[in-house]
């Protein structure tokens, strides 16, 4: 052992640590999920109360009965609402990830961050275009199922490069998306369950599992 200055246990630990840090995005915070879920709940509440008149208007029926010109402003409000939720959720994710990275003393923008974003955006971008085509062709009842399914696929795809919970969150969203496609007309409920509730549940699990201890200590 004369040439081996360090202990083999420490060496193995260092190897494991570097392999993990260089291949997985570990700055993802459960708080991002909780925040995104809260934004989605708020967005759904706004849609239901103000845009859909407390459930008096079922969007897909309205769409089919009213002429396209009449539903134009409603469609725009719903799109604006969804985009605001998306923007708030993304800002939250960036903020909480940065916070977690700073606490851990690591950089946020690393190889694994880029890889995670790349693997997220391919299915998401495809889904976005597909949903625009659906909306353009008037298949409104399939918009929410497609959102959930493509988001779920994106998460399953990206799950390999971050915490394992993301993989299961993705599978849950895919399941909800398929159910939403079967039970059309309950789009807003499935949307709220997937983007609201599930984000909060999985976010809370991740927070309790990986972060709470550190937060109490500091």
């Amino acid at each position, binding site marked *: 052992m004369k040439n*081996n200055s360090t202990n*083999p246990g420490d060496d*193995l630990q*260092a190897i494991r640590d*570097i*392999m993990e840090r260089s291949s997985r995005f570990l700055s993802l915070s459960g708080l991002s999920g909780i925040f995104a879920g809260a934004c989605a709940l708020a967005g759904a509440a706004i849609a239901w109360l103000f845009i859909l008149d407390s459930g008096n208007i079922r969007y897909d029926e309205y769409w089919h009965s009213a002429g396209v010109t009449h539903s134009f402003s409603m469609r725009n409000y719903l799109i604006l609402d969804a985009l605001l939720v998306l923007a708030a959720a993304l800002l939250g994710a960036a903020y909480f990830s940065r916070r977690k990275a700073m606490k851990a003393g690591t950089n946020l923008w*690393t*190889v694994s961050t880029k890889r995670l974003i790349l693997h997220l955006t391919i299915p998401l971008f495809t889904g976005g275009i597909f949903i625009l085509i659906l909306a353009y062709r008037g298949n409104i009842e399939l918009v929410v199922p497609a959102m959930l399914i493509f988001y779920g696929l994106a998460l399953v795809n990206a799950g390999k490069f971050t915490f394992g919970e993301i993989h299961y969150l993705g599978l849950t969203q895919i399941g909800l998306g398929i159910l939403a496609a079967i039970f059309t007309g309950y789009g807003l409920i499935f949307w709220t369950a997937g983007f609201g509730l599930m984000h909060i549940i999985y976010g809370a699990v991740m927070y309790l599992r990986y972060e709470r201890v550190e937060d109490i200590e500091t």
Partner: protein
Amino acid sequence: MKNSIANLQKVFESRIRLGIMSALMVNETLTFNELKELLGVTDGNLASHLKALEQQEIIGISKQFIGRKPNTTYKATMHGRYLFRQHLAALEKLIKNR
């Protein structure tokens, strides 16, 4: 026991070289800056270790241009992967035999 010590690769005794190789085992290619950030070492230090690994054909270097900026990426060679696996197995054996 004797055999496992013989399998320990002298080239991986340095923690930095061990780190470079660990990262290149799970990433197809990495740039100089990515390695630097990951390992938290200085330019000069990293460069000298990379050179040593390259000379022993444990890693390969490819130089490309992105626009006008030179971009050097590193990847583990087959030989390097083989040596690293041997080194890992030797380390594990050492721990088990304690």
